[in-house]
């Protein structure tokens, strides 16, 4: 897969973002900015409870309103499809619309279509749903109780011995012998990471329209080709009759990976023969996507000299009422949970537990931030108890290049100690601390993609300009910019002469998905491969290497194509095959590695944390665009501060989320930033992507919580094991410490 070769000067250069001008002039069209002639507006009908049996749905009052065209329910889907189609990326468990039961607060039971948005919204309130409230589980303990109501109908899991419980799957990984391992010091604690939500500033938006003898769908989706497959299956259409338009999402962070309401809109559009449009409110996105809540018990064994002996992790991940991709989040997120260290013995048992809550899904870090919070916090505690510098303890056990730190996976693929030393240098780890300040450090690691398939078509046109077709969703990471740089570099043309086309499954070749920070590596390799093939053809057609040497590309194109003009094209492919015997179905294409250190102080009266300096260093192999790498790393760091310091869902006793929306759920603003952000990269060109690149974008988020908690402990002595480290929680911990000084907090 490797495409290492000395890059041209364009690689790494902070060239302006492709699509940037549209973004600063208002010209960029997101899904909600697109209107189709004759469209109808859709509003979802939900119930004010977490779990209910649907007795009847009376649409008459809604239908009597002017402009209302239909009230669509499960019955209407079944009438067309014969039975309720179910879908999902891992399990086909999610119905197109709730049938029989509503399984979480926000589960749509009906959808109204009307000529205006006003009419749709008002009519949705008039749909009368008779229901019986049923017992619900929305905590880990509640879902695991022996008498807990079952979230999923056991008939959806025939032959599964866990079908009679709320445990969807268990993921067990082990090496060495944890049970008989011993250590001088054993530290055992339980850590909690609450539900948080992606909160993309663009709420999800969907349009579905009949399209000849097929369907066209517009969605703010990360994986248009996966959506195409889901739609083809539930509608029983050939792939070629399903066209997915995927305009650049306005932020996604994993929350826009998989199909949500597109199948419902497609059924409605085909039933009424008109385009259907659904733009979620921000509150509706809170009940559409979230991160898994996690409780992690970790037992860490370390010898007196700081040598790691064993680690034993037991993790309960509370997923939602439908699996979405959450069980993969659990499996892949927990798998690398022991971190970037050499452990002689290690064990991870992780469970995905169904509950009557919002289906949890991918969210930047994909299950890793939760387990990292626990494991890295426990390491800090162990270091303090051993009297070893937390930085030194980590360095002493860190995997070196080539170490099989997970015995059956890809070996350590970077010189990770360089990142650790660099972050220590940036934060001034060994320098005296100003009074009242504390410092903390934590390391993060995440497996890159385990399988992958990306195609790219490159067309060199008669004037020496080029088109790159690449199906990656450009959701802010700047994918098209780096593809343009790669193509321009390989063809030796100005980057301004490259146009990158994405977002239409009928035009752009297949790409498996935009996730796991894969696109630089996988799609990047496809783009580079296609570009190199085009270059080879061009040189051959222009008379071979000696004739082409030193000749500008546009002149070569004229010589190669002659008076008729035309174009030279090639398809590039990047493939990472599945490995059926591997616990994750495939080894990591690369690892994202990050070291984070912070220096903070705490207001003793309010519990408010001020981060004075935040240092973050990622091993990216090689930057394709230094500016974009910085933006992604710093953005990930600040997003990490969100779940560290302020974000969490609050539930009432009925399992309803009480802090829906921007007033009661806070994310970082410009007033919540570290006073200084120090970000840097380590680049040894040791990745599998173009010119030695690795994927990046998630690493800088992974260890933030553990680094901040370590610094909080350093500054104040208080230990908090439940996120967030909100002023309220910190203040409470400070009070406990004052009252019972020898106990610290918790």
């Amino acid at each position, binding site marked *: 897969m490797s495409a290492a070769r000395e890059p041209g000067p364009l690689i790494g250069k902070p060239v302006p973002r492709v699509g*940037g001008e549209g973004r600063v002039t208002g010209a960029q069209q*997101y899904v909600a900015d697109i209107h189709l002639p004759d469209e109808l507006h859709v509003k979802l009908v939900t119930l004010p409870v977490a779990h209910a049996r649907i007795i009847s749905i009376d649409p008459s009052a809604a239908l009597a309103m002017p402009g209302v065209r239909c009230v669509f329910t499960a019955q209407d889907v079944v009438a067309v499809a014969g039975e309720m189609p179910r879908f999902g990326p891992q399990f086909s468990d999610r119905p197109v619309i709730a049938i029989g039961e509503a399984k979480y607060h926000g589960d749509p039971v009906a959808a109204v279509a009307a000529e205006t948005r006003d009419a749709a919204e008002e009519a949705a309130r008039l749909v009368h749903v008779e229901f019986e409230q049923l017992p619900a589980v929305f905590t880990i303990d509640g879902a695991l109780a022996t008498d807990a109501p079952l979230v999923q109908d056991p008939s959806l899991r025939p032959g599964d011995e866990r079908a009679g419980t709320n445990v969807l799957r268990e993921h067990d990984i082990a090496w060495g012998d944890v049970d008989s391992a011993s250590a001088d010091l054993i530290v055992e604690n339980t850590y909690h990471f609450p539900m948080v939500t992606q909160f993309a500033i663009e709420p999800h938006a969907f349009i579905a329209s009949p399209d000849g003898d097929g369907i066209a769908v517009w969605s703010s989706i990360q994986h248009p080709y996966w959506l195409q497959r889901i739609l083809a299956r539930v509608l029983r259409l050939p792939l070629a009759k399903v066209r997915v338009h995927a305009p*650049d999402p306005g932020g996604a962070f994993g929350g826009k990976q998989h199909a949500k309401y597109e199948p419902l809109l497609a059924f409605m559009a085909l039933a009424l023969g008109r385009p259907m449009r659904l733009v979620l409110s921000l509150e509706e996105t809170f009940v559409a996507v979230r991160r898994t809540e996690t409780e992690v018990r970790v037992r860490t064994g370390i010898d007196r000299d700081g040598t790691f002996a064993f680690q034993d992790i037991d993790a309960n991940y509370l997923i939602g009422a439908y699996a979405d991709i959450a069980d993969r989040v659990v499996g892949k997120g927990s798998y690398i949970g022991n971190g970037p260290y050499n452990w002689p013995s290690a064990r991870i048992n992780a469970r995905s537990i169904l509950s009557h809550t919002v289906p949890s899904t991918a969210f930047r870090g994909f299950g890793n931030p939760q387990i990292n919070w626990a494991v890295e916090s426990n390491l800090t505690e162990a270091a303090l108890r051993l009297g070893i510098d937390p930085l030194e303890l980590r360095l002493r056990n860190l995997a070196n290049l080539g170490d099989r730190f997970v015995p059956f996976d890809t070996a350590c693929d970077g010189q990770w100690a360089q990142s650790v030393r660099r972050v220590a240098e940036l934060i001034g780890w060994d320098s005296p601390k100003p009074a009242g300040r504390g410092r903390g450090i934590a390391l993060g690691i995440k497996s890159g993609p385990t399988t992958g398939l990306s195609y790219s078509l490159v067309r060199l046109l008669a004037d020496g300009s080029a088109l790159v077709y690449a199906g990656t969703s450009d959701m802010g990471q700047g994918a098209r910019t780096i593809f343009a740089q790669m193509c321009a570099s390989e063809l030796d043309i100005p980057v301004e002469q490259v146009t990158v086309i994405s977002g239409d499954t009928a035009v752009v070749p297949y790409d498996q998905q935009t996730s796991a920070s894969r696109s630089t590596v996988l799609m990047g390799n496809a783009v580079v491969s296609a570009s190199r093939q085009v270059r080879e053809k061009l040189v051959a057609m222009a008379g071979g290497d000696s004739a082409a040497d030193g000749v500008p590309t546009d002149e070569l194109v004229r010589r190669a194509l002659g008076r008729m003009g035309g174009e030279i094209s090639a398809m590039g492919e990047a493939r990472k095959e599945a490995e059926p015997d591997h616990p994750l179905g495939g080894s990591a294409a690369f690892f994202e590695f990050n070291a984070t250190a912070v220096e903070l102080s705490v207001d003793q009266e309010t519990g408010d944390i001020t981060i004075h300096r935040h240092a973050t260093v990622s091993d990216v192999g090689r930057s394709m665009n230094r500016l974009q790498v910085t933006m992604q790393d710093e953005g990930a760091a600040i997003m990490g501060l969100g779940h560290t310091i302020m974000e969490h869902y609050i539930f009432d006793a009925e399992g309803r989320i009480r802090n829906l929306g921007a007033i009661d759920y806070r994310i970082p603003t410009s007033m919540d930033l570290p006073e200084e952000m120090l970000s840097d990269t380590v680049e040894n060109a040791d990745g599998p992507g173009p010119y030695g690149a690795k994927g990046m974008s998630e690493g800088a988020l992974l260890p933030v919580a553990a680094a901040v908690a370590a610094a909080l402990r350093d500054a104040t002595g208080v230990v908090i094991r439940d996120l967030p480290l909100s002023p309220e929680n910190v203040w409470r911990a400070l009070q406990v410490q004052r009252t019972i000084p020898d106990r610290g907090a918790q």
Partner: protein
Amino acid sequence: MQVSLTLNGRPRTFSVEEHHTLLDALRDDLGLTGAKECCLVGECGACTVRLNDRIVDSCLVLAVEADGGDIVTVEGLAPEPGRMSALQSAFLEKGAVQCGFCIPGQLLAGDDILRRFEHPTRHDIEEGIAGNLCRCACYYQIVEAVEAAAHGRAREEAQLVESAVVREMPPHVVDQ
């Protein structure tokens, strides 16, 4: 109801439902989709526009309240079609733009800072964009972009004053 206002320098008259917001009117009746819809409760700032001399969350202003007003949206920030304002250019140059969804609001907030402060401090800028959420979290870069635009303006003014002597200004230092 009939509403007349000036939109990005052009007079516009249109009819609007009494309960529709200025944001609704801009996006649905006037065809300008630059102002974005997100929280609809005045917290996220994605719908920020300038109404007369101050910026507002257009989701909290009724369209009828804007009657007679002078409104500038992101579509009206460029000095002429095909050219970008100094602030728009600075946003791209400093790397302040990722997904772009919040950017129309950030630009209006940034433009407002430049109007209110001759030499805005870092704190002035952070406070000025505090009502504009960016989940990509390009805040440092947004602050730098506003600073750069302010510096650029200061330099232009200095050049006008001392037009005979074109001075080399020190490069803008980014403290990260």
